[in-house]
């Protein structure tokens, strides 16, 4: 028994020393407080926050004496605990608003209790029987699925076009499908997205029209409309800014800095 108690003392002393030296072992001030509170050997609900604050401040002093640099959040906690300590020691000031010192202390105790509960929960979780350690999945799963069935399909138009192509040796194209003079929005978007990075200064939107679509006429109109729509889309995405000095003036665009993505 005695030997056991002695060993316990040694362990406690070693822990004390470790506490002073090993600041890195703590996951923040709350973790340090929780470790310190365990040394009070009482239920967290009955912990003396005052005593805890003193322990913490002693620790911080000791670390300073050893010229151990403490992270800012440890110091913030120290300042707060020093404040709390003075409030707990002084008689309450009836004119002061906000939570009382006792409330603050109770909240700290609650935080410690909650962290402790999560620690225990984490421990229980990791201690469970686990897949790949205590229990196992099928070692030789049979390849299920992956029967890719390709469903071929065709439309009536494709069928008719194919036949017309065969019989007339030229491409049959109903008028509605004639899109040679239409510049699609997708194409405009792709082109503008690729080029906008270089537009460090305000540039005329018309300068972004593809070659072959610049001469006046339906092709230019279509390309301009699509490129404008594309610029709106990119402006919405935050990639460019749009400017027009007055009605009917040329629309100008510029790459938005810092949004290169």
């Amino acid at each position: 028994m005695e030997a056991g108690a002695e060993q316990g003392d040694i362990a406690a002393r070693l822990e004390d020393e470790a506490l002073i030296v090993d600041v890195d072992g703590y996951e923040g001030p709350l973790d340090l407080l929780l470790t310190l509170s365990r040394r009070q050997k009482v239920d967290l609900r009955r912990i003396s926050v005052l005593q805890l604050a003193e322990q913490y401040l002693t620790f911080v002093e000791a670390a300073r004496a050893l010229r151990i640099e403490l992270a800012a959040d440890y110091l913030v906690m120290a300042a707060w605990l020093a404040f709390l300590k003075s409030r707990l020691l002084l008689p309450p000031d009836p004119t002061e608003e906000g939570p009382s010192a006792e409330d603050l202390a109770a909240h700290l105790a609650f935080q410690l209790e909650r962290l402790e509960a999560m620690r225990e929960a984490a421990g229980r979780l990791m201690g469970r029987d686990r897949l790949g350690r205590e229990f196992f999945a099928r070692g030789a799963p049979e390849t299920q699925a992956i029967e890719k069935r390709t469903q071929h399909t065709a439309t009536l138009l494709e069928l008719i076009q194919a036949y017309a192509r065969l019989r007339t040796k030229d491409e049959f194209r109903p008028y509605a499908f004639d899109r040679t003079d239409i510049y699609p929005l997708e194409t405009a978007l792709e082109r503008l997205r690729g080029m906008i990075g270089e537009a460090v200064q305000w540039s005329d939107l018309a300068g972004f029209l593809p070659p072959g679509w610049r001469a006046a006429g339906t092709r230019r109109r279509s390309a301009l409309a699509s490129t404008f729509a594309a610029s709106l889309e990119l402006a919405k995405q935050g990639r460019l800014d749009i400017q027009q000095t007055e009605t009917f003036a040329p629309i100008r665009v510029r790459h938005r800095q810092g949004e290169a993505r």
Partner: protein
Amino acid sequence: MSDETKPGPGLFPVPPMGEQERMIEAVLFASAEPVTSAELAKRLPEGCDVAEALVHLRSRYAGRGVHLVRVGDGWAMRTAADLGWLMRTEQVETRRLSRAAIETLAIIAYHQPVTRAEIEEIRGVTLSRGTIDQLMELEWIRFGRRRMTPGRPLTFVVTDGFLDHFGLETPRDLPGLKELRE
């Protein structure tokens, strides 16, 4: 788990047969490869009768959805052969028909009943076996009557499935060449 809780050779009573069966069941289930009897004997506590446990386990899985089977030197759990179809899941991927297929289909639709030679004449290329197979598989074409000409060649016609897919009532609803030109 500490070694103390593990049955050691000779130190602990041999587990009952039901337990041995459980152990083999678990090992075979979790193993990526078939496991030999010798390997099983090595894994199980000393004194186990692997051969007997395997017999029990095998009969336990008889008629079930999975069986205990011999694979080479080893033992493994495998899906019952009659349930193999369950292991397949279909992933339907829609793809356009090849140009050859669509042209062939168009010719059959416009000229049915039509022989292979006629299709080849119109397209100017030989008709591959795969193209016909594909259209047959889609159930868009089928064999028609044999042509009453020398050699009695087979003809192809389109099916009701074809009409259904393309939204036609009869093959005559297909637009004529003249209409196509307008």
